[in-house]
C-alpha cells in the first residue's frame, strides 16, 4: 500500500496576540511614521539645496517646475509619477515636500494632486487583468476596477476646470489653513519638528561626509528622501496589513451584509489604517470577480478609500514649517471629500461611473485587447502626450 504524503496539519486557533507583540508592532509603526516625516523633510530640504545651487534655473526655485505651470501638464505629470511609483500617497507626500520647500506653488501643485488620484487607479485595474482568462470573472473584476477610474476621471473633469477658472480648491484650502494654523503669514509650527530636524541633520551630515556638496549633495539627499518615503510607506502598509488583517476581513465581511454609509466608512477605515488606497481597492477586485461582492457594494468602499488616503498628505505636512504644505494637503482632502459629497448622496449620479464601468467591462470581456488598450491609453499615452505637449520646461 503506498504511503500517503501525510495528513494535513490540524487547524488550531491561537489566542489573541500577546501584549508584548502589540506594543512592538505599535512601536514599529510609530518609528515608520517618524521615518516618513524625516523623509519628507529630507526631500523638501534637498529641493531647496538644488534650487540654491542653481541646478534648477536661476536663483528662483520656482523655475524648478516651470514645466508644470500649464495645469494640464501638471495633471499629466501627476498621473505619470503615480503610475510609475504605484502609490498616490508617495506622490501627494512628495508634493507636500516640494510645496513645503517653496519650489512649487500650491496653485501649480493642485493639478498634480488631481493627477495622482487618476494614476493610483492603475493598480486595481492591473489586478483585474489577472482574471482575463475567465470571461465572466474578468467582466466583474474589470468593472470593479474601472468604476474607480471613471469616478476619478469624472471628478477631475469637474474640479480641474473649476480650479483653473475660480481657484475654488486652493482658495478654500488657504482659508482652512488660516483657520487651522491660526494666523496669516506666520510660519506653521509643527509639534514634532525639532526631532525631525535633528534626524534630518544626521542624514545630511552622513551624506556630506561622503564629500558631496552643492548640486551633488542636493541630488543625493533628494534620492535618499524619495527612497526613504517609498520604504516607509511600503513598510507601514505591510506592517499594518499584518496587524489588522482580521479587522480588514471583518470590515469586508461587514460590507457584504450592509449598505448605506457603512461601506464608505469601512473604506475610509481600512485605507487610513494601512495608509494605502490601492490595497483597499485591490482587495475588492477578487471579491467582485468571484461575484460575492457586487459593483454597487464595492463602489462606496472605493469612495471611502479616496477619502482615507488623504490622511497621508496631512501627516506629511506635519514635517513642514511652511503653511503651504498643509494647504496642498487640504486641497487633496477637499477634492476627494468634495467628490464623494457630489456623487454619493444621489443615486442617479453615482450610477453614472458604474454604468460606464459595466459597459467597458462588457466590451472588454468580449475583446480582452480592448482592456489592455484602455490601460495603455488612459494611464500612459494620454498623460505622456499631455506632458510633452503642454509642459514648458526642459
Amino acid at each position, binding site marked *: 500500500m503506498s504511503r*500517503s504524503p501525510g*495528513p494535513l496539519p490540524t*487547524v488550531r486557533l491561537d*489566542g489573541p496576540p500577546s501584549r508584548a507583540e502589540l506594543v512592538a508592532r505599535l512601536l514599529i509603526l510609530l518609528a515608520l511614521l517618524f521615518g516618513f516625516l524625516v523623509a519628507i523633510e529630507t526631500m523638501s530640504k534637498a529641493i531647496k539645496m538644488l534650487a540654491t545651487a542653481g541646478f534648477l534655473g536661476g536663483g528662483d526655485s520656482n523655475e524648478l517646475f516651470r514645466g508644470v505651470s500649464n495645469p494640464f501638464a501638471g495633471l499629466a505629470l501627476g498621473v505619470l509619477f503615480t503610475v510609475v511609483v504605484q502609490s498616490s500617497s508617495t506622490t501627494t507626500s512628495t508634493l507636500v515636500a516640494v510645496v513645503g520647500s517653496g519650489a512649487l506653488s500650491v496653485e501649480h501643485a493642485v493639478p498634480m494632486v488631481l493627477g495622482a488620484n487618476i494614476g493610483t487607479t492603475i493598480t486595481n485595474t492591473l489586478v483585474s487583468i489577472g482574471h482575463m482568462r475567465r470571461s465572466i470573472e474578468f467582466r466583474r473584476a474589470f468593472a470593479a476596477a474601472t468604476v474607480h477610474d471613471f469616478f476619478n476621471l469624472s471628478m477631475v473633469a469637474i474640479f480641474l476646470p473649476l480650479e483653473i477658472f475660480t481657484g475654488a480648491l486652493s482658495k478654500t484650502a488657504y482659508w482652512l489653513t488660516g483657520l487651522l494654523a491660526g494666523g496669516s503669514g506666520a510660519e506653521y509650527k509643527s509639534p514634532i519638528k525639532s526631532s525631525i530636524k535633528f534626524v534630518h541633520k544626521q542624514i545630511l551630515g552622513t551624506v556630506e561626509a561622503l564629500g558631496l556638496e552643492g548640486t551633488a549633495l542636493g541630488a543625493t539627499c533628494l534620492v535618499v528622501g524619495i527612497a526613504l518615503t517609498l520604504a516607509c510607506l511600503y513598510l507601514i502598509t505591510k506592517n499594518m496589513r499584518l496587524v489588522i488583517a482580521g479587522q480588514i476581513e471583518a470590515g*469586508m*465581511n461587514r460590507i457584504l451584509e450592509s449598505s448605506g454609509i457603512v461601506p464608505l466608512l469601512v473604506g475610509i477605515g481600512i485605507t487610513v489604517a494601512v495608509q494605502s488606497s490601492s490595497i483597499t481597492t485591490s482587495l475588492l477586485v*477578487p471579491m467582485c470577480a468571484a461575484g*460575492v461582492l457586487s459593483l454597487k457594494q464595492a463602489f462606496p468602499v472605493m469612495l471611502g478609500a479616496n477619502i482615507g488616503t488623504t490622511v497621508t498628505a496631512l501627516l506629511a505636512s506635519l514635517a513642514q514649517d511652511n503653511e503651504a504644505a498643509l494647504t496642498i494637503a487640504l486641497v487633496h482632502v477637499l477634492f476627494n471629500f468634495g467628490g464623494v459629497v457630489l456623487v454619493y448622496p444621489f443615486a442617479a449620479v453615482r450610477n453614472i461611473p458604474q454604468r460606464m464601468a459595466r459597459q467597458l467591462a462588457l466590451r472588454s470581456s468580449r475583446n480582452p485587447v480592448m482592456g489592455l488598450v484602455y490601460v495603455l491609453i488612459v494611464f500612459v499615452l494620454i498623460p505622456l502626450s499631455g506632458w510633452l505637449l503642454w509642459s514648458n520646461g526642459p
Partner: protein
Amino acid sequence: MANWTQTDGENAGFADILRNFSSMLQDGRHIFDAATNALVGGTDPETIREDLFSTDQRINRTEQRIRRQIVVHGTVHGAQSFPSLLIMMSLAKDAERIGDYCKNIFDLAALAPDLGSKEDRAIIVHRKDRVSALLGDARDMFDAQDEKRARTLLADCDKVENECDAALVQAVRDNGSGAAGLALSNRYLKRVASHTANVATSLVMPLDKLDFFDE
C-alpha cells in the same frame, strides 16, 4: 503533527467560518433525526415538514455564507490560507449534501413505504440511531480538531456503510415485500454516513486525498 500556528488576525475570520460549518452539522443532525423519525419513528411527516425544509434552507444559506467568507478570507490573507479554505469549501458541500439526503429520507417517509418485516424495521431504527450519533460525534470531533476521534469515526462510518451496502444488495436480491423502501432507506443512510466520514477525513488525510479514506 504540525500545528497551524496562525496569526491572530487570521484566526478570527477563519474561526467564524468554522463556527458556521459547525452549525451546518448541528442543523444536519437535527433534520436527520426529524426525517428518520418520520420514516421509522412514527412521526407524522406533515408535522415536521415546515421545520425540516426551513432548516434545510438555513443549511444552504450557511453554505453560501461560508463561500463568501472563504472568498473574503482568501483575498485578505493570501495564499497561505489557500489549503484550509479549499478544505472548507469541500466540507461545506458535504454538510449541504447531508441536508439534501435528509430531504430524500423525508420524501420517502411521506410515501409511507413498506420497510419489510418487523426485524428489518428494527435494523433500520438501530442503524439510523448510529448514524445520528455519528453526526453528533463528527461535530464534536471537528470542533475539537481531534485526529484520534476522527480515525475512530471513520472506522464507525465505514462499518455502517458496509452494512447499508449489504442490506441494499440483500433487498434487491430478495425482491420481497419492502424491497424498494429498504433499498432506498439503506442507500440514503449510507450516503449520510459517507458524507459524515468525509468530514473526518479532513483531519487525517492530505488535501488531495480528501474524501478518500486510506485504510
